């Protein structure tokens, strides 16, 4: 009796799953099959779901999707496991999406999954943080890592009078794009500002509170410190609060990559001199337009320009679609932006 029951249960489950044929997604899988104008499915992958930076990118992506009428799936890791992005991409492969737009936490790791997607006929673009070039068709580049690193260092030098000590706050030591930006910051420093010295690099694990305590410690360890530079958007407000509480507003300058909304207060108080970023909503918007065009065949390798809806024309350098240059949000212009 017991064996029969178990056997029946097992057979039932096997039968139901056996009913579905193995799906080899044809060129661009079919999620909502409509014969004439098939709706394209775009899968948008941020580095992490709960990050305000990616939330603002996603807003732009949503706006583009509303204009285009495609189906947009946004999903990303909520926990720090670096393998999660791969799993999400692989789920999308079996789901049968048409095009994947990804911001990559692990350059090499995710390329494994992206190559599989391309092999199954799914188009791939990357944005914000690139994968390996052979795993995607285009990279929507908000600014080259070199551009970002140089912009940060130039602004730092301008504020410090091209000499003095500064410290860097990074998100996590394992985040590859931040490591790359730091490399270019150092390269620029060594080439153009040899009188400036980077005394320490601290990781805040992408926690604002930790950035604050790290900065407090840095301020007391290095009394001659002139500037704090953050490569993570969580670092600038945390460092600003620490500088304010230490009473060093104005003495120690604070810059970094950051979102305008999180830093408006500190910029107006004079604690933060400026945050550098790009228009994240535009990045999301451009990415979705590029993904859509790629899936429809309108965007091909070798194109020199790309027109994205209401944003106009964008230059393509090689396989990088350039959003433009990094933008500095400071006291004069930060109120015009809301993200």
């Amino acid at each position, binding site marked *: 009796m017991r064996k029969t029951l178990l056997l029946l249960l097992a057979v039932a*489950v096997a039968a139901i799953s056996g009913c579905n044929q*193995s799906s080899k997604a044809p060129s661009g899988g079919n999620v909502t099959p409509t014969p004439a104008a098939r709706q394209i499915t775009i899968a948008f992958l941020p580095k992490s*779901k709960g990050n305000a930076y990616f939330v603002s990118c996603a807003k732009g992506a949503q706006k583009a999707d509303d204009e285009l009428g495609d189906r947009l799936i946004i999903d990303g890791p909520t926990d720090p496991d670096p393998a999660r992005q791969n799993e999400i991409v692989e789920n999308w492969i*079996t*789901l049968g999406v048409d095009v994947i737009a990804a911001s990559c936490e*692990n350059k090499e*790791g995710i390329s*494994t999954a992206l190559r599989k997607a391309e092999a199954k006929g799914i188009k791939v673009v990357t944005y914000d943080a690139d994968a390996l070039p052979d795993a995607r068709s285009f990279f929507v580049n908000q600014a080259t890592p070199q551009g970002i690193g140089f912009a940060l260092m130039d602004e730092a030098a301008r504020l410090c009078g091209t000499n003095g000590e500064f410290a860097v706050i990074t998100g*996590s*030591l394992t985040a590859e794009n931040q490591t790359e930006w730091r490399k270019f910051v150092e390269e620029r420093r060594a080439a153009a500002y040899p009188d400036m010295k980077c005394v320490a690099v601290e990781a805040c694990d992408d926690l604002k509170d930790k950035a604050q305590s790290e900065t407090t410690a840095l301020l007391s360890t290095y009394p001659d410190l002139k500037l704090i530079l953050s490569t993570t958007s969580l670092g600038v407000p945390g460092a600003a609060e620490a500088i304010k509480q230490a009473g060093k507003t104005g003495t120690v300058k604070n810059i970094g990559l950051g979102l305008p909304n999180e830093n408006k207060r500190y910029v107006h108080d004079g604690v933060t001199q400026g945050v550098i970023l790009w228009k994240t909503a535009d990045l999301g918007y451009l990415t979705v337009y590029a993904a859509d065009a790629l899936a429809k065949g309108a965007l091909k390798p070798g194109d020199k320009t790309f027109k994205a809806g209401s944003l106009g024309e964008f230059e393509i350098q090689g396989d990088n679609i350039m959003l433009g240059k990094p933008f500095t949000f400071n006291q004069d212009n930060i109120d015009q932006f809301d993200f």
Partner: protein
Amino acid sequence: MNTDQHGYKSILLRHETILFVVLAVEWIFFDAVGHNFGTYDNTCDILRHSCEIGLLALAMTPVILTGGIDLSVGSLLGLCAILFGKFWRDAGMPLPLAAACTIGVGALAGGLNASLIAWLRLPPLIVTLGTFSLFRGLAEAITHGVDTFTDFPASFLFLGQERWLGIPAQALVFIAAVIFFWLLVHRTTFGRSFRAIGFSPEGARYAGIPVGRRMAMVYVLAGIVSAIAAIIYTARLGQAKADAGTGYELFAITAVVLGGTSIFGGVGSVHGTLLGVAAIAVLHSGIAHALLPGEMAGMLTGVLLILALAGSTLPKMISGLRARKSTPRLAKQIP
């Protein structure tokens, strides 16, 4: 577990059976609601994604059976992954030798846990809390946080990404591990001694079981399995970084407890753990395919865990309440 009832009721009301039904319901539901969920490709993906956690959960089962716990397996996975990369890239070892050395390191790390827990008789929760930080810290210190190991040869990546004879390559390792652990726990005297130690270490000692050696064995095994999982993880991702395996230990413990193993030890099974791993993996995959928000998977896992726990205790509570109604309550008679 209701062992005092006969016939089909005892099979139907067993924890593992209920979990199997839950798994079947999940599968049928997501197959209907999700897109391309119940396909062969997706099943292979589910297998591949849950392989490392499954291995850790398998190794965790005998640990929890003895009444212990091991919070350090996720961090050890990260440490072994980067050491594997280091042996191969910086020490120039051929991959099989690097793998063997990594497994050796895993055994040593497990040995550290084992010596503190079994020999010095320290509480496993705290010892493994300490090694949880220590191993992750060592991984970060060795790589300075930033170093990553990539460009592994295709023959190695085959293990994590390709299929052999139609099933994912790492599934073979997993199946071998399942057979090993099932035999160990359910068909050897070792397994029986684990349960005895979980019920009562003192009683086991008086019964002649070498408690120290057996407990050491489960932690060393956990270390070895973490190392193997690290190698598979690296093959699957094609990359080894210091943050590999973050959060895996909690996932593994959830799967083990979901499968009916008591956290206090003495009761549990390997097939229960397998069902637990499957239930969670299917849930995650199903939610992704049904295009529901990913956070729901975590929330539902938590709810499932509580229901599973409550489900095990409710029968005892009900029979306890029934018993109390018929016997006079002793407590009130104490002046």
